[in-house]
């Protein structure tokens, strides 16, 4: 019998690394995320967490290693191609299209799923109307996950902060990803909003059957919803495992709190 893989990964990295000049920002990053897994990426500030998101989405071209998305190497793809291949993300500092309406932000996410050409769009042939109607319905449906459908016509920059973070998730989801990368989704949210967000991330995973990888400092959220956690320090993974394993890992405690000097 042939060797059977223990688990099917939607996203896998091998020896992934990047240098900025002489500085090694990320090194030997090896990870595998299951098709419907929620994985947390934690670590002190400056550990390289967002850099990893930038590598996975090809904002940066890796110096070493490779990224396998759904069995395919993303080598040579640009960020738009990577998105079309199935990786969508949000941003640590919100990057919505401020001047566009909430609905249009979602429709930008749907861009590659709306099927009509330039000619059809300019002359508004029947296909334009049917496709735009479909996009409108889809956008409202997605917004409804976070109960934001009634704010569809509001300009994105007039939404309160928490709602902007949620809209970013909806916009990323609209691109039809296989894996969703969330960069500090709970930043700036109050405890009850965070509670709500946790439920929704789980719901998205269950309803869409996709994987989620998230960077977060709110340990309650991370420990609460992540099945696996990777801890990063100085660009290297220092621990991997389930939440309970991570919590009792001495290296993790050291990275966060420092070592106790003995015989001081």
């Amino acid at each position: 019998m042939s060797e059977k893989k223990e688990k099917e990964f939607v996203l896998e990295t091998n020896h992934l690394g990047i240098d900025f000049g002489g500085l090694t920002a990320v090194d030997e990053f090896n990870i595998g995320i299951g098709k419907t897994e929620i994985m947390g990426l934690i670590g002190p500030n400056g550990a390289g967490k967002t850099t990893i998101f930038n590598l996975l989405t090809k904002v940066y071209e890796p110096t070493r290693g490779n990224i396998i998305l759904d069995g395919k190497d993303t080598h040579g793809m640009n960020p738009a191609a990577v998105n079309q291949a199935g990786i969508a993300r949000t941003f640590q500092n919100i990057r919505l299209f401020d001047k566009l309406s909430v609905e249009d932000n979602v429709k930008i996410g749907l861009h590659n799923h709306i099927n009509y050409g330039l000619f059809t769009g300019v002359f508004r042939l029947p296909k334009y109307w049917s496709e735009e109607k479909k996009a409108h319905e889809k956008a409202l449906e997605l917004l409804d996950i976070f109960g934001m459908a009634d704010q569809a016509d509001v300009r994105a920059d007039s939404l309160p902060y928490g709602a902007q973070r949620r809209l970013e998730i909806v916009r990323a989801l609209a691109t039809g990803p296989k894996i969703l990368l969330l960069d500090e989704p709970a930043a700036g949210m109050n405890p009850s909003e965070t509670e709500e967000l946790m439920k929704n991330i789980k719901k998205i995973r269950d309803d869409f059957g996709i994987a989620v990888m998230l960077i977060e400092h709110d340990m309650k959220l991370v420990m609460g919803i992540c099945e696996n956690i990777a801890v990063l320090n100085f660009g290297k993974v220092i621990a991997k495992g389930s939440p309970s394993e991570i919590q009792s890992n001495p290296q993790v405690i050291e990275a966060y709190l420092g070592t106790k000097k003995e015989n001081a």
Partner: protein
Amino acid sequence: MLTNLFNGIGLGSVYAIIALGYTMVYGIAKMLNFAHGDVIMVGGYASYCTMMYLGWPPAAALLFSMAICTVLGVLVERLAYKPLRNASNLAVLITAIGVSYFLQNAALLIWSSNPKVFPNIFNMPFFQGVTASAASVSADAAAADTASSGVFSVKQRGTLITIVVNLIIMAGLTLFTSKTKMGKAMRAVSEDRGAATLMGINVNRTISMTFAIGSGLAAIAGVLLCATYPNLVPTTGSMPGIKAFVAAVFGGIGSIPGAMIGGILLGVIEITARALVPTVPSDIFVFAVLIIVLLVKPSGLFGKTVREKV
């Protein structure tokens, strides 16, 4: 006075159409395409040649020159600007000026410096019919001057057509950018190119499309301009191009309604100045507008003041 206003709006409409090309390219590619004015000239020559040598009707010549300019615009972007996508603004600006001179000299080589006299397309039966019906519903300003006969002079007819074409383009473009997926992609790229590409938008294709639209409009502006000022030479496009740039800055570069308002105001200022102080070249006033705008409100009428984040 009313005549001046009417003529000013007519001239301003041409500036507005050209300014659209500047403003859209600036908004999306964040660069000043100083070769834009010369695309107008190419549009003028393309329609001139098809009409005079091949005997095409004006409408066909217009479509042909739009096709030529669209291809030219996309080609220039692909060959000259795309390799500089991540270069400094200054490098791109200098390249644009280089392309401008390249086009002028290429035109000099092909068509020589002898002025070509552009046929007066506004005098053709098709337009006579169009304006006659248009006159019955609108244009009180023009009617005031020609009410006696009920028919426009050829020049007024041209002005009226220019204004109407400008309004149609504006309405079409506004609908395009606000209601179609390509238009929304353009606005997204304009706001945050990085975020747009991470949402799966093909930025290069979006920029190409912007150049295509801007250059296609330049062809229309070229035909309208040459029909009004029939002296066609290789440098025909440069002065209107620069004035349209002033108009775009006046209205707030990057803003489509800004280009419209900026263009029309500039045209009115130019014509009014020419009428009130005929001894002073009117261009002085046009460029005084640029200086005043840059001093008083550098972001233009419709521009948003961007506060530098510290």
